[in-house]
C-alpha cells in the first residue's frame, strides 16, 4: 500500500474515532444541523485549500490568500453600496480580481525570480491595507458594517435540501481539480514544474506560465470562498480571511501535500479540511475556549510534519540499504 493511502486510512480512522468520542461527549454533535454547519465551515476553508494544494505542488507558497478574501469581500460591498449593478455582474468582477492578484504574484515570482514567500507576503500587506481603505465608512470615517440585502448574493449562503451550496461547490471544484491535475497535460505540467523545474523546462514545459496559472487559480479560489463567507455572514468586514492561512495550510499539510513540491492531490486536502473542521467544531462542542483552536491546530501541524520527516527518513534509509545489498550481491556475481 502506498504511503498516501496509509495516511488517508489513518486520518479517516481518526476522523471517525474523534467523531464517535464527540457524539458521546455531546449528543448535539450528531445533529444534522451541526454536521451541516461543520461541513459548511470545512468547505469555506476547503475551497481556498484546493488552490493552495496546487501552490504547494509547485513547491511555492501563497501568503496572500487571507488578504484576497478580505479585498474581495470589500469589492463586493462597494458594488452593493454605491452601484445598482446586479450580483451576476459584480461577483464575476470580484472573482476576476482574485485571479488578477494571483497573476501579479505569479508575474513577480517568475519574471524577477523572487522568492514566493516574500512576494505573497508583500501583496498580503498591500491587500490588507487596501481592504481597509476601500471599506465603506460612516460620517466619522470609521469602517461601517454593511448588511447585505441583495437576494441573489445571499442565495450563495443557502442550502439545497440540508446541504449548503458552498459544500456542493467545494465538492464539485475538488473533483474537477483532481481530474484536471491527473488527466490533462496542463495538470501534469504543474506536477513536473514543482518536482524538477529544470527537467520540466528541458522537456519543453513553459514553467513560468504554469506557475502564473497556479497563482491565478489560488487567487480565484480565495475570492470564491470570500463570496460564500460574506453571503453566510450577510455582511462583510475588512478583516475577513486575515489569519485564515493557518487553517488552510494545516488542512493541506495534514492531507499529505508536502512543501517540497511535485507531490500531493486534492483527495488528501479534502480529508485534511474535514479533520481541521472537526477539531474546531469539537473544541466548541466540548465547551472549551475557542481561543485554544489555533494552538491546537499549530500543534497538529508540528506533529504531522515531524511524523512525515521521520517516516521519510526511515523509508529512505531502508531503501538505500536494500539497494546497497542488491548492489553488493550483483557485484560479487559480476566479479
Amino acid at each position, binding site marked *: 500500500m502506498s504511503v498516501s493511502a496509509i495516511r488517508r486510512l489513518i486520518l479517516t480512522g481518526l476522523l471517525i474515532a474523534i467523531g464517535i468520542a464527540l457524539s458521546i461527549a455531546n449528543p448535539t454533535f450528531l445533529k444534522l444541523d451541526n454536521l451541516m454547519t461543520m461541513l459548511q465551515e470545512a468547505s469555506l476553508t476547503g475551497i481556498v485549500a484546493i488552490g493552495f494544494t496546487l501552490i504547494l505542488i509547485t513547491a511555492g507558497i501563497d501568503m496572500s490568500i487571507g488578504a484576497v478574501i478580505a479585498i474581495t469581500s470589500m469589492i463586493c460591498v462597494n458594488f452593493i453600496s454605491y452601484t445598482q449593478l446586479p450580483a451576476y455582474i459584480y461577483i464575476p468582477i470580484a472573482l476576476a480580481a482574485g485571479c488578477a492578484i494571483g497573476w501579479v504574484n505569479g508575474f513577480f515570482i517568475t519574471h524577477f525570480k523572487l522568492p514566493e514567500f516574500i512576494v505573497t507576503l508583500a501583496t498580503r500587506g498591500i491587500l490588507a491595507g487596501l481592504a481597509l481603505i476601500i471599506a465603506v465608512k460612516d460620517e466619522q470615517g470609521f469602517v461601517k458594517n454593511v448588511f447585505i440585502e441583495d437576494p441573489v448574493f445571499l442565495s450563495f449562503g443557502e442550502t439545497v435540501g440540508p446541504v449548503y451550496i458552498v459544500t456542493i461547490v467545494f465538492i464539485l471544484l475538488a473533483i474537477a481539480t483532481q481530474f484536471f491535475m491527473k488527466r490533462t497535460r496542463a495538470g501534469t505540467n504543474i506536477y513536473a514544474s514543482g*518536482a524538477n523545474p529544470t527537467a520540466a523546462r528541458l522537456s519543453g514545459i513553459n514553467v513560468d506560465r504554469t506557475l502564473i496559472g497556479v497563482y491565478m487559480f489560488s487567487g480565484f479560489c480565495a475570492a470564491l470562498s470570500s463570496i460564500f463567507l460574506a453571503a453566510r455572514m450577510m455582511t462583510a468586514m475588512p478583516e475577513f480571511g486575515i489569519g485564515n492561512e493557518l487553517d488552510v495550510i494545516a488542512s493541506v499539510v495534514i492531507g499529505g501535500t508536502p512543501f517540497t513540491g*511535485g507531490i500531493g492531490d486534492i483527495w488528501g486536502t479534502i480529508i485534511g479540511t474535514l479533520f481541521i473542521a472537526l477539531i474546531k467544531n469539537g473544541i466548541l462542542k466540548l465547551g472549551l475556549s475557542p481561543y485554544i483552536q489555533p494552538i491546537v491546530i499549530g500543534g497538529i501541524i508540528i506533529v504531522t510534519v515531524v511524523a512525515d520527516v521521520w517516516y521519510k527518513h526511515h523509508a529512505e534509509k531502508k531503501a538505500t540499504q536494500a*539497494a546497497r545489498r*542488491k548492489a553488493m550481491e550483483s557485484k560479487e556475481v*559480476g566479479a
Partner: protein
Amino acid sequence: MSNNVKSDLLLECRGIDKNYNGPQVLSKVDFSLRRGEIHALVGENGAGKSTLIKIVTGITNRNAGTIVFDGHDVPVEHNKNASEKLGIAVIYQELSLIHGMTVAQNIFLTKEPLLPGLPFIDIKKMNAMAQEMIEKYGFDLKATDIIDKLPIAQRQTVEILKALSNKASLMIMDEPTSSLTAKESERLFKIIRMLKAEGITVVYISHRMEEVYDLSDRVTVLRDGKLVSVLEGEEITPAEIIRLMIGRELTEDESHHKMVDKRDREVVLEVKNLSAEGKLNDVSFKLHKGEVLGFGGLVGSGRTELMRAIYGIDAFDAGEIMYLGKTYSPTVEKSIASGFGFVPEERRLQGIMGGISITGNIGIANLDSISSPAGFVSRDKELERTQTAISTLNIKPANPDHLVGNLSGGNQQKVVVGKWLIRDLKLLIVDEPTVGVDIGAKEEMYQTIDRLSREGVAVMVVSSDLPELTRLSDRIIVLRKGRIIKEFTEGVVTEEEVLRAASGIVEGGAK
C-alpha cells in the same frame, strides 16, 4: 557540403574554439560522428570533453567553428531545445526525470496521448505505449513504476526510452556507468549495442578504459582542449588511449616524481579495516609524520568518502581509526580540536562562505582561539590571524574585508587552507586541492603542501589530476570500488601506472 546525398557523417564539428572569458578551454577542435557508430570521447579531467558536449547540445555557445548536424548547419546561437528538435539527446544519471511520476509519464511528458477529440490524457494508451517500448528493448521495468523507487540503472533506461520517444538520432552518455554495478553496466552495454543496431549514434564518455575498449568503434582523444587523435578499430587499446591522454613528452624530472619513504617516522594516523556499507571496503593504511599520502582512483572509487569518514562527517560501519597511538572515534568538533584540517572537495559548496569577508571565513574555524572564555570574539585577534594567513599564503587582494565570493578560485582555495594553517596543525586532509585554480596559484598550493610536510604535518591528498598526485605524494594509494587496489611506495611512479591501477588494470598484485 553535398546537397542531396546524405553524408555518412551525422555530426561534423570543425575548428571549435571556446573560452570562458579567459583560459582557452577548446582550441580548433574537430569532432565528427558517423551514423550508427559508438564513439568514445576520452581525455583527462579538464581536457574539454564536457565543454565540447555542452556546445553540441547547445547548453553553451562556441566562440568559433562550424557544426553540421544531419546536413543542417547549426548556428552559434544554439540552444538545448533546438538541439533536442534536431534529435540530439543527453542521457543524464537522473537529472532530467520528474520524481513522483511514473515511467510512462516521464517518457511522454508534454507529448502525452490524448483521448480522441478531448483535452484529456489517455492514461491507458500512454501506459500501453510505454510498456510496448519497454518490451521492445527488453528492459526490466513497468510503465507504471514510480521513478523514485527505481535504482539509478533503471532510471537511466527511462532516460534512454525518453530519448527514443523523441526520435533522437544521437545519444550522448556522460560517464553512464559511474554509479552502476558490473552487472548493470553489462546490461547498459547491451542496450548501447541495440541502439547502434537501430542506427542510433552513441557518444560515450568514460574514464574506464576497458569499457571504451570493449564498446567503441572509434575513439576521439582530447588533451588540454586540443584534439590529439582519433583511433579506429585495431588502434584502440587501453594502453594506447592512456598514453595519448597523458600525452605530453614528459621530462624525466616532471613525470617521475621520486617517492620518499617516510615510513620509519612516527605514525600519526592508522586506519584499520575501515568499512562503510556501499562506500568503503576493508581499507587499512598508516600515515606518518611529515608524509604526503596521495589517494588516486576514479570518481566514485571511495576516496572522498574515506576522507569524510576519517574527519568525522560520515559514520562508518566497521573498523578502527587510531590517532597518535590512541583509538579515535571522529566527530568534526573533535577532529578540529585534535589538530585536523579539512579542505573539502566542493569549494563553493563546502569550503567557503562567499558572502562573508576573508576575516570572517578564517575566523569561523578558529573561534576557540580568538574568543574569550565568555564567548566574545576578539576582532583584533581575528584580524591578526587573518593577516598572518594572508601573508603566508599570499592571498590577493590582501584585504581582510574583501568578500571571499569575489576572489578568484585560487585565492578562495587559499582562504580555505588558511583557516587551518594558523592553527597547531597536525594532519591536513585536502580533497582536490586545485580544481578551478589557475596555474600560478596551483604552484603556490603545491609549495604550501610541501612546506607543511617539511614542518612535520601529515597530509592526505585526494586528486584526480594525475600530474598533481605524482608531483605531491611521497606515497600513493589507489582506490577502486571502495578498496585499496594498489599502493605505490617507492621508486618512481608514472601517471600511466596510476591510471592503469585506477581502471583496474593491475599487473600482479591486485587485492
